[in-house]
């Protein structure tokens, strides 16, 4: 029986050490991802959390760790090391830390494997969680981005500390005695970082994601490729396809026994199951909220590309203001997307369109389209009565419209010959104009081709002001508030210098007078030269 117990203990111990090594790597790499880690406590044991700690498993990291271990366990002279280094955008790299999981020969025969060792390994992992946040590399990793990135490399064998430079320091995370040896977890870290101002690496976070695609050639014969520490895992519920593991995934369901100390019995039950997910040999797609990245396992490369504006369609918050003309019989309305929720005015009818109009509809962003589709039936009282200056029923007429938005930051100006200074107003309400619209603006405004000239005079009569609440203004408390100001100065006359006729006339005159001017200038050449010399 004692032999069976010992062999069972030996099996348990090997398993504990193996999964402890894997969890150690996870904790270290996750601490260098550059973001805060948060996992939830669970009062009910799930059976899948080794050492009763909620430490998520990043599949690639597990894969790399298993590859490095290659079925072995840390033993005397065979340490598992995680190297953390920094690589700048210019390609320079520098080792920052080496985390070592070592085993020495000092055995503790009396210790109970499945109870004390397990709990102490759990404590050691907690210590690792704490220590990974206090070494200098942590603050650097939180600021990684465009200028530099943090990489990790796992290797098995002899510890290589030469890359840390002179005077590196060592911190011991902790030790756990076992019947086969003492496990020691420590970190050697470069200290000349302390003399480097972290401001050197300060940067604003990139708006878009980082595309990482690099290797670092290591001089060591047993080198393994470096990997970036900015892997983002999706949640477990996103249908992630994990690579198959070589051995069965083991779940540790631990139950402990309470009894008088002399008869302490500890039972460990384990469930074995295969990873239920299919094998992925090529590309791993892990969709995330607003981000997507592909993971090419075959080359251990990590590229990280956020979906371009998938995140941003809600976040961009464009209080886009559109302007278009409406014809008399088919009043249209433009929808205003944006998360601030402006009050859209519903069109009376769907866009009466030619194909061009349909295409323009199709250029709406999805939010526009949804918005547009939702509003035709609403707010009859907010419709605008349009008045095409030419009275045509064609949908190509200039459209007039009103937009109401509560707040707004920037106005997207349609690409058209707009003389409306109202479009410069960053906030909602403005009087519609007869516009000559050239083309669909990039934000997908719903307007037909503005082919008509459109008079500019009678616009004020053809719309009903529904609401005007410019941001940052109080409601009519002052005699001359912001809204009144807007209304009064929305339609200034066109500048004379901008009128084509005047411009054309002056152009002709300018051309005629050129020879005379040149002759005068030639006479005064000497004066000009003297002036230039005084400047030098």
């Amino acid at each position, binding site marked *: 029986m004692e032999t069976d117990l010992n062999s069972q203990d030996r099996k348990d111990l090997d398993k504990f050490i193996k999964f402890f090594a894997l969890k150690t790597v996870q904790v270290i790499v996750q601490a260098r991802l550059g973001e*805060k*880690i*948060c*996992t*939830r*406590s*669970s*009062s*009910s*044991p*799930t059976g899948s*959390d080794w050492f*009763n*700690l*909620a430490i998520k498993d990043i599949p690639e990291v597990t894969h790399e760790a298993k590859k490095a271990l290659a079925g072995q366990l840390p033993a005397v002279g065979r340490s598992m090391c995680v190297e953390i280094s920094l690589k700048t955008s210019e390609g320079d790299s520098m080792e920052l830390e080496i985390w070592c999981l070592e085993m020495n020969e000092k055995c503790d025969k009396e210790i109970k494997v499945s109870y004390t060792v397990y709990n*102490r390994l759990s*404590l*050691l992992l*907690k*210590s690792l*969680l*704490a*220590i990974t*946040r*206090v*070494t200098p590399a*942590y*603050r650097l990793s*939180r600021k990684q981005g465009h200028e530099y990135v943090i990489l990790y490399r796992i290797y098995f064998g002899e510890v290589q500390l030469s890359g840390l430079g002179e005077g590196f320091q060592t*911190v*011991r*995370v*902790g*030790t*756990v005695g076992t019947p086969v040896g003492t496990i020691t977890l420590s970190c050697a870290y470069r200290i000349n970082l302390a003399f480097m101002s972290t401001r050197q690496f300060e940067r604003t976070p990139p708006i878009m994601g980082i595309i990482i695609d690099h290797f670092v050639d290591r001089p060591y014969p047993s080198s393994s490729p470096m990997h970036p520490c900015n892997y983002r895992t999706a949640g477990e519920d996103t249908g992630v396809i994990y690579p198959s593991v070589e051995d069965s995934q083991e779940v540790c*369901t*631990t*139950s*402990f*026994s*309470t*009894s008088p*100390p002399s008869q302490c019995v500890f*039972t460990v039950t384990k469930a074995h199951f295969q990873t239920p997910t299919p094998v992925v040999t090529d590309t791993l797609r892990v969709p995330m909220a607003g981000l997507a990245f592909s993971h090419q396992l075959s080359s251990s490369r990590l590229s990280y590309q956020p979906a371009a504006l998938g995140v941003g369609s809600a976040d961009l918050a464009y209080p886009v203001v559109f302007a278009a003309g409406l014809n008399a019989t088919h009043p249209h309305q433009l929808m205003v997307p944006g998360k601030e929720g402006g009050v859209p005015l519903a069109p009376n009818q769907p866009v009466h369109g030619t194909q061009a109009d349909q295409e323009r509809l199709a250029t709406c962003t999805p939010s526009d389209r949804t918005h547009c589709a939702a509003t035709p039936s609403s707010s009859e009282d907010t419709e605008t009565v349009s008045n095409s200056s030419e009275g045509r029923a064609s949908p190509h007429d200039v459209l007039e419209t009103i937009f109401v938005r509560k707040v707004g930051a920037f106005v997207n100006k349609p690409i058209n010959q707009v003389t409306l200074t109202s479009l410069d107003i960053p906030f909602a309400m403005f009087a519609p104009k007869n516009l000559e619209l050239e083309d669909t603006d990039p934000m997908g405004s719903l307007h037909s081709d503005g082919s008509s000239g459109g008079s500019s005079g009678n616009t004020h009569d053809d719309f009903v002001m529904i609401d005007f609440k410019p941001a940052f203004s109080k409601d009519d408390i002052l005699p001359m508030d912001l809204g009144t100001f807007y209304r009064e100065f929305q339609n200034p006359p066109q500048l004379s210098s901008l009128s084509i006729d005047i411009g054309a006339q002056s152009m002709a005159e300018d051309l005629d007078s050129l020879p005379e001017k040149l002759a005068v200038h030639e006479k005064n050449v000497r004066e000009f030269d003297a002036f230039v010399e005084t400047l030098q």
Partner: protein
Amino acid sequence: MNCRSEVLEVSVEGRQVEEAMLAVLHTVLLHRSTGKFHYKKEGTYSIGTVGTQDVDCDFIDFTYVRVSSEELDRALRKVVGEFKDALRNSGGDGLGQMSLEFYQKKKSRWPFSDECIPWEVWTVKVHVVALATEQERQICREKVGEKLCEKIINIVEVMNRHEYLPKMPTQSEVDNVFDTGLRDVQPYLY
């Protein structure tokens, strides 16, 4: 049984008191908390899972790890808040200390009340300094951050000495050893 006692000293600016205290106390409690025990038949029990989360300090260049338990965090914040107020109101030299004591309850026969026997005490001594310029404050941010890193390393060193810990209790005695009042985690009685 002797009670193990550890003392940590920090010098901080007034607005850093709370965060420095929380960093130290949460680090200690991280090591002194387990998952919830679920007792089964035949005297066996299983243990829940402890989650962790990183907390960035606002006034110190420092990040610490705490147990993911809002109840525990609230309890600590309340106590630290009271300590900070007491420190502020006391005036004087800006010195104060707070102790986190882990104890076991020992049932006594009637009419004696239960005994509380401490087995580990962590004392944090705080020295509050007043700074005049923004530059000094910025330097203090970094310096206190570095000091706290050293404190965390000290705490971890003590924790990993694997000295006395109360034996795992039976179901009837679990409240004598652990604080079972929290929903998600179970720290030792403190």
